[in-house]
């Protein structure tokens, strides 16, 4: 079952057919989502009523295009804001964690490592509710004690950012650790040997080496943040990110505006993903 071992051609073709079917299965939903963004109908379903760009640029009800739908434009902004913060925090903490786990040996390392992995096996809902419940009780206690308001601990962007950060950091840590593990420590020693200070060596040699992983982790973090639903839903306040808005719209009945947003999302994330891959290739 490897190219160098001969196989019957029936088997080979069955296998290829299966792989083809699989990729059709993968592509199908996205394809229809994109296609119906151009349907000249208020409903994202058959029959096909003709091609239109109104769902992108339309200004007249009911054909309000994405770019003129305030709630969506605002939600995209909110999502981007959240994503940037989450990615920044997750990458920063992830980089620290990577150095800690790869470079240091200390008591309790194994336990901490397992704790670090834990967010992978905690369902997102539970992360959401636990942070919600905990932040609320802290806020209640503080408010009772001080008489001040602690809005930051109530559902809202700060909690959304913290909630997403709480599990995305694990991914960032894993991605960056994996690369740091491949780092040849003698490169840093060589830098020291050539007269660099400890921090200088890390800055000039180690961090540039980690850069592809850092960028990769950042992109993954942005994408995960953009698409997160389960944790966000529990923590969202008045500023709702895009997925929450889209879910609301979907629940209340969908128009091809949703397809149009989805199409934009697909294009943007594909571009972002490809870009990060290209970047990692070029390094």
């Amino acid at each position: 079952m490897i190219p160098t071992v001969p196989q019957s051609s029936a088997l080979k073709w069955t296998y290829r057919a299966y792989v083809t079917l699989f990729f059709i299965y993968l592509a199908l939903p996205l394809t229809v989502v994109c296609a119906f963004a151009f349907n000249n109908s208020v409903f994202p379903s058959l029959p096909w009523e003709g091609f239109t760009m109104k769902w992108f640029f339309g200004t007249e009800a009911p054909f309000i295009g994405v770019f003129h739908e305030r709630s969506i434009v605002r939600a995209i902004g909110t999502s981007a804001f959240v994503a940037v913060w989450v990615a920044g925090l997750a990458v920063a903490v992830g980089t620290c964690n990577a150095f800690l786990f790869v470079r240091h040996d200390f008591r309790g390392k194994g336990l901490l490592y397992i704790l670090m992995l834990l967010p992978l096996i905690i369902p997102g809902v539970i992360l959401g509710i636990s942070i919600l419940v905990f932040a609320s009780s802290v806020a209640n206690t503080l408010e009772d004690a001080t008489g001040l308001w602690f809005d930051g601990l109530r559902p809202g962007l700060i909690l959304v950012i913290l909630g997403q950060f709480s599990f995305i950091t694990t991914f960032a840590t894993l991605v960056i650790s994996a690369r740091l593990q491949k780092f040849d420590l003698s490169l840093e020693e060589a830098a020291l040997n050539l007269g660099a200070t400890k921090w200088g060596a890390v800055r000039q040699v180690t961090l540039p080496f980690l850069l592809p992983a850092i960028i990769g982790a950042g992109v993954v973090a942005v994408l995960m943040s953009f698409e997160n639903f389960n944790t966000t839903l529990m923590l969202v306040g008045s500023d709702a990110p895009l997925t929450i808005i889209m879910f609301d719209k979907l629940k209340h009945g969908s128009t091809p505006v949703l397809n149009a947003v989805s199409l934009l999302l697909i294009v943007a994330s594909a571009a972002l993903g490809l870009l990060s891959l290209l970047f990692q290739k070029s390094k």
Partner: protein
Amino acid sequence: ETLRLLTWGGYAPDDVIAMFEAETGHTVEVTTSNNEEMIAKLRATNGGGFDLAQPSQDRIASAQEEFGIYKPIDMSRVDAAQFIPSMLSATATNTTFDGEIFGLPHVWGTSGLVVNTAEASQVVDYTDLCDASVAGDVSYRLKRPTLIGFAYAMGLDPFAAYSDLDAYQGILDQVEETLVACKANVKTYWSGGDEIKNLLRSGEVVAAMAWDTGGWQLNADNADITFVAPASGALGWIDTFVLPSRGRADDAAYDWINFVMRPDIAAMITNTAGNFTAAVDGDAGVNADLKARYQASFDQAAIDNIKWYPPVPAGLEAMEGATLDRISAAN
């Protein structure tokens, strides 16, 4: 100021917002939601995060008792003359808690049946949705209005039993049995106004328990589909204005209230939301078709037969919730 508005879909059309922003200099951020989520959100934020919310009048007092998430309305800042007096006072009564008024009426309407008369003209009451002739082609929500509507259609009087929890539980048990048996008839439980409209429009559903406005909107495209006031009576609701206890933009909130209650604005809202408002002369600018459809659905007898929701006592929703869960789990 920024007004963070927690409301139903359709209650804050973009053109209204634009006019309001131009006139007052405030900006408006809209979050659309439903009764339960509005309360849940405000409970989670302890009354923060939003400056104005619009739950139905029957859900206000109990939520206030339980969670204390609203602040009283300062009637001196409201232009009371813009409100139809009977609605204003009815809402005030229903939303009073500890001697303070928490709600102002905004939009009212009914829940009843939306029927594709070409396919299912035989559906005239909620229980008809369980008829074998429409098997697989009906839809309703899995929410408390459905329980209440079915109870009436089954000849029971749930509102009368509000004060007697045991009696109410008895009613719920009967309704549960009916709805579990009816489950096979249901295509899907809908949850958003546009969703049920899509289902009806596409023909995937031919009869549904739904809001009147959806039926009228569909009627414009397809004359066969319309809202039917059920034989046992439509359920009447009033959506209100309430101020979350920790809203930060009260000025903007009162400005918004006074703005949207202007007859011209109220008419604009009626035209998008499909329901009439509590604004004096609010129906003047409403387009004639909508009025005609309203009149076609409601003759005087039907209007008299509307069952208006009384305030929900605390604790009732927990019982209803258990019933709804059991229906949802049955198969």
